[in-house]
């Protein structure tokens, strides 16, 4: 199992859901947002989040190294770009981040043959946390609202 995720693997895993997301094409407001842990969590799957966000024109910056544990309320990824795209893609990104973190922390069993689950399992030995599974939310910066 690879220690990293290649783009082809990620694209194959997310594309069906990505083409189905809904983005308000009229709103061109740009701004910043953060993905924040709402529980103690392992941060795994940032490359998946980066892939999802990049496809809708949103830049990402990891605030926590891949595979590291964080406490509740920690910001883990910063996002910048069209707020409509951030809002539209966030549910999918949060779902993947929670899924990868849950597999890595042992809260969810990996799916056989799923390369992203296999990658997440590989990171679990570094810092497992025992809880019912991580959770994340999107926080949009107050003051964001600049027309592009």
């Amino acid at each position, binding site marked *: 199992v690879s220690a990293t995720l290649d783009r082809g693997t990620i*694209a194959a895993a997310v594309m069906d859901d*990505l*083409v*189905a997301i*809904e*983005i308000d094409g009229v709103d061109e407001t740009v701004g910043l947002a953060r993905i924040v842990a709402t529980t103690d969590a392992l941060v795994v799957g940032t490359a998946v989040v980066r892939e999802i966000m990049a496809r809708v*024109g949103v830049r990402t910056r990891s605030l926590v190294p891949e595979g590291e544990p964080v406490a509740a309320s920690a910001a883990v990824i910063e996002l910048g770009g069209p707020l409509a795209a951030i809002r*539209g893609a966030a549910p999918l990104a949060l779902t993947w981040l929670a899924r990868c973190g849950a597999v890595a922390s042992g809260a969810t069993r990996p799916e056989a043959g799923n390369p992203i689950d296999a990658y997440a399992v590989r990171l679990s030995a570094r810092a497992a946390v025992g809880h019912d599974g991580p959770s994340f939310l999107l926080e949009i910066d107050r003051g964001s609202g600049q027309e592009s």
Partner: protein
Amino acid sequence: LFLALTEAAERARSGERDANTLVAVMAREIGATPLARLDYAAVVNEATFEPIGVLDRPARAIVAARFPSARLIDNVALPEPAA
């Protein structure tokens, strides 16, 4: 989109230097994707992002496609031309 870019990169790696051919490859791949409507496909100068006709310098393939509820974009660096 990634498949279209990968196909273009493979063609470039195999020696294809005509950017229009690579654009056609990407357009055909995206055109065959259900629900996708090609917005643009281009081969651009890596440094300036200006479209180029021949792969004789570092270049990047870029694509955008509209789906029913979202517009998606992607790009990939093309293999360097052989010296």
